């Protein structure tokens, strides 16, 4: 229950902060713009609405993770809260999980908001009686994949916010990692195990969501997201303890 106490406070702080609200607003505006553009482009094709919506959401999530990272441990460090956190009878994993959950909730909120906006856009934009191609399984698979990816981005953001000493640096580094590491990983996997991955994807995470919405759920990527999120959170917990031992926080 303790991580939820921390997460609730952090989510509330994040949601009320200018960074949190601004990032959410920008992600929503950008996401809806991109969705409209993709809808217009897909007119007359067999592309499903779930694929386009999932693709749109997957681009906005790293932005929110970056905003959360700029408020996470970085903010506590700036306000001198770290020393008090070290002396509080709370384990490192509780702090780390709490911060990660707050970031994850923000991204899930974005997912829900985009779902609502997408539904409104589709209802408003379509002629009476027309139907968008798409199955409910598509929405479900894409949703699951997005939620898992959000957890991974939350883990990355939490670790980065512990490592960096400024809000801007934390946000920038999180965005950079979210943008660069997945294609690099896909390239390395394709190079080392050509039988596993035959193609180097430029946007592997986004493509996975797109494919999931089409009914091709990439279980390996889903497990990978979960595993990497666990590794990130474990590393963040370890780092938190290390910072306490080093005593560099004032």
């Amino acid at each position: 229950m303790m991580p939820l106490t921390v997460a609730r406070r952090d989510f509330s702080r994040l949601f009320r902060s200018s960074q949190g609200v601004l990032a959410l607003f920008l992600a929503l505006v950008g996401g809806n713009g991109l969705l409209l553009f993709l809808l217009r482009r897909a007119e007359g094709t067999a592309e499903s609405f779930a694929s386009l919506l999932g693709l749109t959401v997957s681009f906005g999530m790293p932005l929110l993770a970056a905003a959360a990272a700029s408020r996470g441990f970085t903010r506590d460090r700036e306000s001198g809260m770290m020393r008090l956190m070290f002396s509080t009878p709370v384990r490192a994993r509780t702090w780390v999980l709490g911060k990660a959950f707050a970031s994850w909730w923000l991204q899930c909120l974005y997912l829900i908001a985009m779902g609502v906006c997408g539904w409104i856009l589709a209802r408003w934009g379509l002629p009476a009686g027309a139907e968008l191609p798409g199955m409910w399984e598509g929405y479900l698979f894409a949703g699951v994949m997005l939620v898992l990816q959000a957890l991974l981005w939350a883990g990355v953001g939490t670790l980065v916010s512990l490592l960096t000493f400024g809000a801007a640096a934390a946000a920038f580094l999180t965005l950079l990692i979210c943008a660069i590491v997945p294609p690099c990983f896909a390239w390395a996997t394709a190079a080392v195990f050509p039988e596993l991955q035959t193609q180097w994807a430029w946007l592997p995470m986004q493509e996975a969501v797109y494919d999931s919405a089409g009914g091709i759920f990439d279980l390996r990527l889903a497990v990978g997201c979960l595993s990497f999120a666990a590794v990130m959170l474990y590393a963040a917990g370890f780092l938190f303890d290390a910072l306490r031992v080093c005593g560099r926080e004032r």
Partner: protein
Amino acid sequence: MLELTDATFLYAPGRGIDGANLRAVSGECVGVIGPNGAGKSTLLGLAAAALVPQSGRVRLTLTDAGGRGRQRRYDSDIGIGYRRHVGYLPERAPVCPEMTVAGYLRFRAALRGESFLRVRRRVEDILERCALRPLRKTRLAGLSFGVIRRVAVAEAMLTHPALLVLDDPFAGADLAFRESFAELLRAVAQRSCVLIGGHDPELLATCCNRFVLVERARVTAVVDDYGEAVGRLREAEARPAAEEVPAPGRKGGRP
């Protein structure tokens, strides 16, 4: 009982605290004094388990309230058992500016492991004791430095800890609160061990019955007498930086 045995934490040679020996029992209020940069905050950080000693030991020994005399020992660097019994006010008194006074205290009480039903009672009690009741619904961002510090003091005392560590608690406090706070600390010190850091021995003398002098990263003296403490502090402040300070507990220093 709080026991620091050769506790060392050095940021750099001569900065931090080196080989500190200190023993404080329940019912005692110890003032930690010394010039700026002497290592008072580091010593208090070690006692509050916010810092882990690089060498030596910081141990808290508690006796069961049941009267059976069973003793429990907690080392500051192992687990969170030690931290459960510590209330700490750091030098910078951090708080969450977007929370209300009562909301912040409730959050901190929940983090300290208080049950849901007890949190409210604890918060109401401390709001009353620290004269914060009229401000309970005010956001911390709108409060002055002195009042924010008072909230941080209230947070440290929230769960009636066995060891209370306060780093400069009188900073920013107005005269009326200083008097009532000193009285409150005397009451707390009757059943807890209290460590207070500060620069003004006259203020500390209103509640402390022992003084620890910290000089250039070392505990150089532990005295009971206020006059002696003031004299030693003046000497320490007047001493040129290059002069050698005797090792604590080895020559001259009383652990």
